[in-house]
């Protein structure tokens, strides 16, 4: 599948934003998030900012952005529509939670904690909907498997937790607990992503050139319909990155998981260094962009069987 920049930015940025909401709520409930208005404003501003950047990026890649509002109408059947509804809904509890924290600097009320929990659950729901846009597409076996939603549900909170580690160093509320949560998420994400790669490498083909044509024997494309290329080949026949997938996977593991994990471990045993946690954040961001690029580039679409692919 063609790895469009807008969709890579959408899924990574909004994933980090919703992840930050989830981890901030968790830390708030554990009493790790100070009630100062600067912390509230920065944390929620950053989270919602990332969400808005992601949503705008996904909107501007549409053929008709001005009609985007129509996309919330078909939530009964469409995961893309559900994602739109969930994304818009999530603003309400997040802003409510932020409002209570902002106006009651002293202590949390029951309503505020309730809103915080609703905000976190809504963010989890939105991440799940985003994942299922891809997870529900049967023609792309690398996506329509049980691990796709799990990958999205851990990578979002992983990037969000590293963001919160940075905020904790900047605003001076660092704690080994926050670092520990982030480290756990990095390690879990690494193992889940590894098993995802093993799954897509080892899964038997679902469709072949033979099932695509209904012809028995060794079926190979003899002649393409046209000498030139077309939308289908450009959008769904992307092959370039597959050549480099092993190297890109290593970059993802090294930069996206190993570097942040090493810095988080150093932070747990050594002195707190703000600049180092920013390095961890940048490394994780690069690693996750590589991961998301591969998520698209490595995925083969069943219709490519009509354009020379032998199995998907």
């Amino acid at each position, binding site marked *: 599948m063609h790895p469009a920049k807008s969709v890579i930015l959408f899924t990574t940025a909004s994933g980090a934003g919703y992840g930050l909401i989830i981890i901030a709520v968790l830390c708030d409930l554990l009493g790790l998030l100070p009630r100062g208005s600067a912390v509230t404003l920065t944390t929620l501003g950053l989270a919602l900012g990332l969400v808005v950047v992601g949503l705008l990026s996904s909107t501007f890649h549409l*053929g008709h952005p001005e009609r985007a509002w129509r996309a919330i109408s078909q939530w009964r059947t469409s995961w893309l529509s559900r994602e739109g509804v969930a994304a818009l809904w999530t603003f309400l509890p997040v802003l409510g939670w932020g409002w209570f924290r902002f106006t009651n600097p002293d202590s949390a009320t029951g309503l505020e904690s309730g809103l915080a929990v609703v905000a976190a659950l809504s963010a989890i729901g939105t991440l799940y909907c985003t994942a299922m846009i891809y997870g529900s597409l049967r023609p792309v076996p690398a996506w329509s498997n049980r691990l796709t939603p799990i990958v999205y549900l851990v990578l979002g909170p992983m990037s969000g937790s590293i963001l919160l580690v940075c905020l904790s160093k900047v605003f001076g509320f660092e704690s080994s607990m926050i670092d520990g949560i982030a480290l756990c998420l990095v390690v879990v994400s690494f193992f889940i992503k590894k098993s995802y790669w093993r799954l897509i490498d080892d899964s038997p083909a679902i469709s072949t050139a033979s099932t695509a044509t209904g012809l028995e024997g060794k079926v*190979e494309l003899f002649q393409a319909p046209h000498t030139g290329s077309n939308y289908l080949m450009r959008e769904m026949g992307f092959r370039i990155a597959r050549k480099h997938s092993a190297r890109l996977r290593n970059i993802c593991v090294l930069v996206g998981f190993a570097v942040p994990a090493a810095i988080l471990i150093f932070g747990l045993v050594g002195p707190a260094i703000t600049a180092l946690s920013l390095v961890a954040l940048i490394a994780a961001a690069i690693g996750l962009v590589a991961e998301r690029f591969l998520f698209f580039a490595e995925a083969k679409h069943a219709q490519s069987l009509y354009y020379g692919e032998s199995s998907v």
Partner: protein
Amino acid sequence: MTSLPTDPSAKKLGLVIDLDICVGCHACAVNCKEWNTGGHSAPLPDHEPYGADPSGVWFNRVHAFEVVVDNGDSRTVHFPKSCLHCEEAPCVTVCPTGASYKRADDGIVLVDASICIGCKLCSWACPYGAREYDEDAGVMKKCTLCVDRIYNTALPADMRVPACVSTCPAGARSFGDLGDPTSDVSILVAARGGYDLMPEQECKPTNKYLPPRSRKNGANAENIAPAAMEPPVEPASLLARMADRILSL
């Protein structure tokens, strides 16, 4: 509404494509383009049509496959493909706006271009590559089963079939109601063992393909091998033939 019709009629209009007959002339694809660039989803844009890398929107494309069976016997199969108007059309249910829909009356899958946002998700959901994005209009386009021909009372009755069917010079394409077991197309499918493409994708396509027939007289790679061929013997003089005999000893 992008839910599939809850109470669909028994009528399932579609095509039957005979892979035994198709000669790969591309007339169906060309006539499809010609009709539809002025029809329901007009225009079907072309970019650089006379340039080095022409590209455009087509609803019907003719692929060709080489099939090799175990004994080494091979054949070329021309393979036209357009929208299969699936019963369980995934392109319909993924649509976030309701632009993509399946008609309850006859099962034709269409796009309402006036509410399509151009997110392309329907083209990702289709395993057959039946949908093509119009970059100029920013909306998705697809085969309409010539909905603007088949019900068009301004046309003579024998013209009320899809453009691809009316133009096929070999009679490889048939159009009809596949939901009616007594229709000509249903009888043809039953007689020839018509099948679904990629049944494992669980889309229940309406269009059916008829397999190439097996070769007559058991012809295969062994008994039609070029070993039986000998170079033609040119007329030669008696002396030359004798020299040939002696030298061949």
